[in-house]
């Protein structure tokens, strides 16, 4: 992974293996601490949420995307700009529901799970659940409540990794002034 090339502050290249190892250490430690896959999934989601609420500002400061006015625009921005910026991959957006409020992100590769195999005793562990929390937290800060979950996971035998995102509602309470 490398930082954006137009950042003149520091353009460091960081070894993505270190990132994979760090994430792996985090998940295994959580498994040891909680001993219950459901609990670990919840904690990963919470941690992801805390990352997401901060990451959104970094994303908005560095990209020049404006406010998205419908869910399709949001999906495009997430897949083409955000995932590219932070994980270096571009998932595809498919499987739109008829009402246009649900879609899937199909990830061909997932940098978090390079070299990872799930053992049998952790079959219900959603290893990359952090990503769900990140997406949920980030969108909440731009006044969109969404539900994010993994529909398919290569670690559990599926062919691709599929993240299903469902639009719940717009959060009207903290709407910054001047946006509708």
């Amino acid at each position, binding site marked *: 992974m490398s930082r954006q090339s*137009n*950042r*003149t*502050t520091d353009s460091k290249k960081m070894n993505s293996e270190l990132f994979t190892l760090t994430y792996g250490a985090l998940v295994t430690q959580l498994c040891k601490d909680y001993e219950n896959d459901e609990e670990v999934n919840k904690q990963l989601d919470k941690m992801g949420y805390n990352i997401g*609420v*901060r990451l*959104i*500002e*970094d994303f*908005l*400061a*560095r990209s020049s995307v*404006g*406010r998205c006015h419908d869910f399709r625009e949001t999906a495009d921005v997430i897949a083409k700009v955000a995932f590219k910026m932070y994980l270096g991959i571009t998932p595809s957006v498919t499987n739109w529901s008829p009402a246009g409020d649900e879609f899937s992100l199909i990830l061909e590769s997932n940098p978090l799970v390079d070299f990872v195999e799930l053992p049998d005793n952790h079959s219900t562990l959603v290893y990359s659940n952090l990503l769900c929390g990140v997406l949920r937290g980030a969108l909440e*800060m*731009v006044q969109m409540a969404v539900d994010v979950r993994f529909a398919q996971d290569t670690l559990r035998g599926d062919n691709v990794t599929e993240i299903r995102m469902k639009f719940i509602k717009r959060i009207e309470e*903290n*709407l*910054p*002034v*001047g*946006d*509708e």
Partner: protein
Amino acid sequence: MAIFSVYVVNKAGGLIYQYDNYVPRAEVEKTFSFPLDLVLKIHDEKVVVSFGQRDGIRVGHAVLSINGVDVNGKYTAEGKDILEYLKDSSNYPVSIRFGRARLTSNEKLMLASMFHSLFAIGSQLSPEVGSSGIEMLETDMFKLHCFQTLTGIKFIVLADPRQSGVDGLLRKIYEIYSDFALKNPFYSLEMPIRCELFDQNLKSALEIAEKAGTFGPGS
């Protein structure tokens, strides 16, 4: 110093960061003998000149210090009422420093929330739908530039009217905020920003903006 101050206001309208970059230029210290020919009055818990402008001491200037010791509102550092003190001829000759009174932090908090409300009114006054809030407020002494992010945080910069490139500076401050405040795990969102690195980087950004007069994107 063409950039006067920076304010950061959170979603709820509370001031979470404030930085003053200017030193009030008009501070005058003079020695006076009895009787004082300036007319002083109490205004907002401070002693200000109401009439008798002379020698660089303007109407509206507040008493900042007496005999070199900073005053405490309308009382001297020892707790004596300033107007009483100056009416007593035995205290003369006295050296008084006058200058533009600085805003206290409470006043700044109040002004920030008031600006937050005015910002909202600005967008409601618009004849067209979907207007932004107040982006610039201009007076003859300064221009106030405001940038609201999609998440509701406002970055406000008060600068000289001739200063250019403040838009770029506002974006740069947003980047510095997202780096040094948000990536600090010990900083909680919406709380006052007390991060050393944020202060340092903000100061260098202001210096660059002042020297260059403009701030390029992505720098």
